[in-house]
């Protein structure tokens, strides 16, 4: 999937966050967004994910030669961030079934268990995910992002709260995406940056 950002800027209540950011991410590429704390890395990622509207500039998405509209972006994108909260009153399997139903996917219990195994979560836990540790919740966010096999994966501080095994899982998923998708990572972590083919530094306006 190809992502083209042209002259993107963002203000919150007239306070400029960043301005005039342009980049193109090609299919199969792992692209990094870096910058100091408060420079607007996460804000830029949210704009790329269609969760925030930019104050200026445009974003265009192309998948298999056709343009993806902002309305349909949620179908072709997976998003992982520490501030993403899942439905904590449900168990891991119930969450997966819920997301699959809303996305209109046919998903068996076996599929759900395979996904849980892939991110290193126990398949036999039936308690609500509010009882999970912060690292386990981060792994559930990975499940949420890859369940519908999107061609675009947006990762904001993807290894936060994860142990070494969890980090390997994230980097394994990123490596898989190189073959069939595009990854954009907002991070300051050296190991995350090492996974990227290119990076852009966001400067606070």
């Amino acid at each position, binding site marked *: 999937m190809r992502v083209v950002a042209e002259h993107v800027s963002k203000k919150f209540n007239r306070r400029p966050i960043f301005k005039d950011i342009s980049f193109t991410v090609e299919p199969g590429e792992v692209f990094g967004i870096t910058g100091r704390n408060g420079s607007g890395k996460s804000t830029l990622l949210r704009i790329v994910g269609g*969760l925030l*509207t930019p104050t200026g500039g445009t974003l265009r998405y192309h998948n298999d030669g056709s343009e993806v509209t902002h309305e349909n972006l*949620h179908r072709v994108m997976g*998003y992982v961030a520490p501030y993403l909260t899942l*439905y904590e009153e449900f168990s891991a399997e119930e969450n997966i079934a819920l997301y699959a139903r809303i996305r209109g996917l046919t998903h068996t219990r076996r599929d759900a268990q395979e996904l849980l195994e892939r991110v290193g979560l126990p398949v036999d836990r039936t308690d609500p995910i509010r009882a999970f540790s912060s690292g386990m919740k981060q792994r559930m966010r990975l499940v949420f992002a890859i369940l519908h096999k999107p061609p675009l994966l947006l990762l904001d501080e993807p290894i936060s709260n994860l142990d070494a095994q969890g980090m390997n899982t994230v980097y394994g998923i990123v490596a898989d995406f190189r073959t069939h998708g595009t990854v954009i990572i907002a991070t300051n972590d050296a190991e995350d940056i090492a996974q990227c083919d290119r990076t852009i530094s966001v400067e606070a306006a």
Partner: protein
Amino acid sequence: MIRQAIAVFYKDLASELRTRYAINALLMFVVVTLAVIMFALAGETMTPGALTGMLWVVMFFAAMSGLSRSFVAEEERGTTMTLQLLAKPMAVYLGKLIFNLVLVMALNLFIIALFLLTMDQFVVHQFGLFWLVMLLGSLGIASATTIIAAIIAKANTKGTLFPVLSFPVLLPLLMAGINATKIAVEDVRWDAAWPDLQLLGSYIVVITTVSFLLFDFVWKD
């Protein structure tokens, strides 16, 4: 979109059945309010018109105490973004509207049943008209409160804002609803209620259309 909306509705229903947040609060509110009315009116003779007004007051405030939950709960749990990543805005709105509609209909049925059981002087003469007004009233309340809940969900003073914003929006519906219910209770002919039924129908169409047009702007940013 319809399939997504139904999935959002089932998600809200499953969440509500598990947490019982709105259901318990609403049932307690209705029981306590009716008990207070019964104590206040002990031995008093009330006209059917006054009792009709009271029925709508209970329905209005019960709706105010529970219907904002559909969007406020997403905001308080921090799951708004999750839902934005999962479904189209229209599907979210429609799913929440269906949930509020089911909730308000169940709630109004419960209120009416308790009202008929406890208020001897409240006798319905035209049941067909009465249930039609209650159905249209529930549709109107659910439609108006769903979009207002979406608007106030991000505010700090959501608890106060919801009834304050809802009252002027619901006022035409309340006036027409009370008038038409009074006609059903006082045994006047059906056609006397026709202007109020037209107003209720038009209100539902206008509010639902405006909500669908507005929701995209409310849901993002």
